[in-house]
């Protein structure tokens, strides 16, 4: 079974069409050309579909990188360690 960390990685690849080698858990929004306003919406929907938590618009627009997504989900009790 895929870990939550692996699910997040796959979600980021699918939402932003990243190459596998481009992905890092410290990747910043400013480094991803496809993390645009529609990308914000798509990521929020993807987080909901994958982890069951629907970020508020403020939370979704406030995400500045993968680390923020991890912090958001862990703040909702979703374990992304390891």
């Amino acid at each position, binding site marked *: 079974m895929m870990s939550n960390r692996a699910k997040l990685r796959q*979600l980021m690849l699918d939402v932003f*069409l990243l190459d596998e080698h481009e992905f890092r858990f410290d990747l910043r929004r400013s480094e991803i050309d496809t993390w645009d306003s*529609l990308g914000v919406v798509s990521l929020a*929907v993807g987080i909901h*579909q994958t982890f069951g938590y629907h970020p508020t618009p403020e939370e979704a627009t406030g995400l500045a990188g993968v680390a923020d997504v991890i912090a958001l989900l862990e703040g909702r009790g979703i374990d992304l360690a390891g």
Partner: protein
Amino acid sequence: MRSATVHAGWHLVGDDDLAASHDGLAAAWSSDRSVVLAPTRRGVNPAWFRDALDRLPAALAHDHVALLTSGSTGTPRLVVGTKSRARAMASCIHVHQDNHAVARTVTLLPLTYSYAFVNQWVWAHAHDRTLVVSPGLADVSATRALLRDGPDTMVCLVGPLFSLLARHVPDGEPLTSVTRVNFAGAPFPWPERAALARVFPRARVFNNYGCTEAMPRLTITAMDALTGPSDLGVPLPGVELGIDAAGELRFRSAYGAVGLVEDGAYREVAADQWLGTQDVAVAHDDGRFALLGRRSEVYKRHGEKVSVAQQLEAVRAVWVGQAAAMMERDPAGDPAHVVVLAPTPSADQLRAVLKVFRARFPRAHWPLRVDCVDTMPLLETNKPDLQALAATVRRVCWQLPR
């Protein structure tokens, strides 16, 4: 010779008639009798033809020709022109492609297609050239031999058919009798230019654009004059092209249809009447036109005009299998498209396709999903059969959260 089928004064010629002999068609064409080409092997009910012919004015039963099209709608339409216009069209093609030295034409497509009928049968008849019916891909060895040895030859292809044919032509054994290659009926196979030079080293290659209502040609552009895969060039003499308010490419032509039967009714086409092509295009300042895609495949999403045809063209640059697109609605009810690949790509191949979306198109243009099927259902022209594909079970390879 099979006995002629005549209805309402029209001489019906079907695929099976042509498979047996062209004599009946030649005799009817040379007389004052009107002729209708009936693609009976493409699932059109003969009763539909009889009903459509019953709706035509009696005056059309002499010196006219009728062809069938389903266009992008899938609904059959009977398109009526005149024999004299068809002959003039064939002569226009003859001059435009400098076909004087071409001795024969070899068929690879059914002659009941307006493209093959005018570019090959009418051309051969009007210019006293030989028409040879090939077995096509049903017997590749025989077709290859036919196109390799013989006098200077013209062929008519569609892009997907060439891709298949090229796989059966080994390096060092080019099809050297072919000196003219026409493409029509699908986007010009721009990525295949090197393969075209390999397979047909003696040929001049032309992109032909038009529709059955144009009977059938609107532009003809030599490959070496094309600026890109969507370039349509400039209209032929006697043809006017324009873009309507919705972006649809429309035309008026001295060769075009004089009437149509659609939705169970006949309507005359006036000499000064513009007809739509069902394609969306843009006009450039230099008089050239560029195709964006079928009207049904160009749509607005998040305020942006999305061309499905351009996206498939980009996919085909990195994907060697079949690719098609189907229209759907997203969860909000807005129009969107799904790309379908066959066979199922590897993870790396899928990533290469997705990378194309990211590199070439803004997010609003990305498909809803990429679906996969083991085998793409194809029409006899080797183009995807979208009706059959809609009924095929597809697997989701990639889906954008929406």
